[in-house]
């Protein structure tokens, strides 16, 4: 039964995605590499990571995030201040023209509360950002094993800073 439902969700998500890529051909806001680390079943909160590129010439405001796979989603930021880790919730997020924002471990991330189904590695689910003008940015997020992806990414970032 759960299998059928998740298949249904997947098909629906694909349809939404096809609709989006057909409808908004000049898509100026692009979300890529959206993934959520696989997590123990004991966890009722999951993190979501992605890269969001604003190709347009205007600042966009992300005002809300939602997914049929979670009860609620917030934008959070992990902070490392004087060696102490903490987290804060953001009410919204501005993305300047032609800027790319990385949601990654230890920084900005989606905080996804109460998954509505059991997740397996490889599962995908739709997520949408709502913009201040009411437009929705839909994308698929994939459950992936926690691994080195992020470490590699952060070491690459650090490398760039030196140049």
């Amino acid at each position, binding site marked *: 039964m759960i299998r059928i439902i998740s298949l249904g969700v997947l098909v629906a998500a694909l349809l939404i995605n096809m609709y989006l890529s057909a409808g908004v051909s000049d898509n100026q806001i692009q979300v890529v590499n959206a993934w959520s*680390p696989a997590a*123990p079943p*004991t966890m009722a909160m999951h993190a979501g990571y992605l890269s969001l590129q604003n190709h347009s010439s205007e600042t966009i405001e992300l005002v809300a995030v939602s997914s049929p796979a979670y009860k609620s989603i917030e934008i959070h930021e992990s902070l490392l201040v004087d*060696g102490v880790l903490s987290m804060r919730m953001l009410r919204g997020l501005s993305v300047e023209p032609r800027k790319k924002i990385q949601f990654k471990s230890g920084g900005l991330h989606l905080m996804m509360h109460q998954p509505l189904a059991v997740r397996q590695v490889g599962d995908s689910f739709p997520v949408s950002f709502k913009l201040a003008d009411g437009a929705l940015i839909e994308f698929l997020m994939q459950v992936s094993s926690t691994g080195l992806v*992020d470490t590699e990414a952060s070491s690459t970032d650090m490398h760039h800073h030196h140049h």
Partner: protein
Amino acid sequence: MLPVRNSFLVALIVAAQCLLVSQTHSATEDYVTLKTPNEIKPFLLSDQYNQAFGLERLKNHWSLVFIGFTTCPDVCPVTLANLEAVRAEMGLRLSPGKIPRILFLAVDPDRDTPVLKEYLAYFHPEYIGLTGEVNQIDKLINSLNAFYRLDKKTPDDSDYDVLHTAFVSVINPEGEMVAKLNPPFHPHKTGNFLIQLIRGLKFDD
């Protein structure tokens, strides 16, 4: 004349502050070997199998202690996975008995105790989770010169964040803290540091 002189002074102060800030930054290195080992005072916690875990169980092994909590969705799972990658990196170059164990010190016992076993089994069956009475957690936290705080907004807040120090403590087989690892725990570099530390060599990056 005076305004010019003032702005010169301001510039001087700003420059001095920049210098200070940059010095503090360079002082936060990824790997810090303590000049004198830090003695761990006696404590009594439980592991995830509800077996007593005190100072004597820290001995005869190298250990990496990471402070966290099981409802932490962002940093903790990635750090635990990275530490396993560090162990894998060391596995090729050290005898198994010298590879440090991973100890997850769970500082939010109300929410951590019921799920700690299942939580850690998900990451690696060999991980050891420690939790227990608040005063015993605080004893170990103090020995590690670490810090944490349950950030409850009201006394019955159940969706609170937990602030905690990000460093990983390296404990030697005598039960002394000998080094600190700071994020991001790059597997190769961290593995190199630990191998040299464990072999008793000075680390040079």
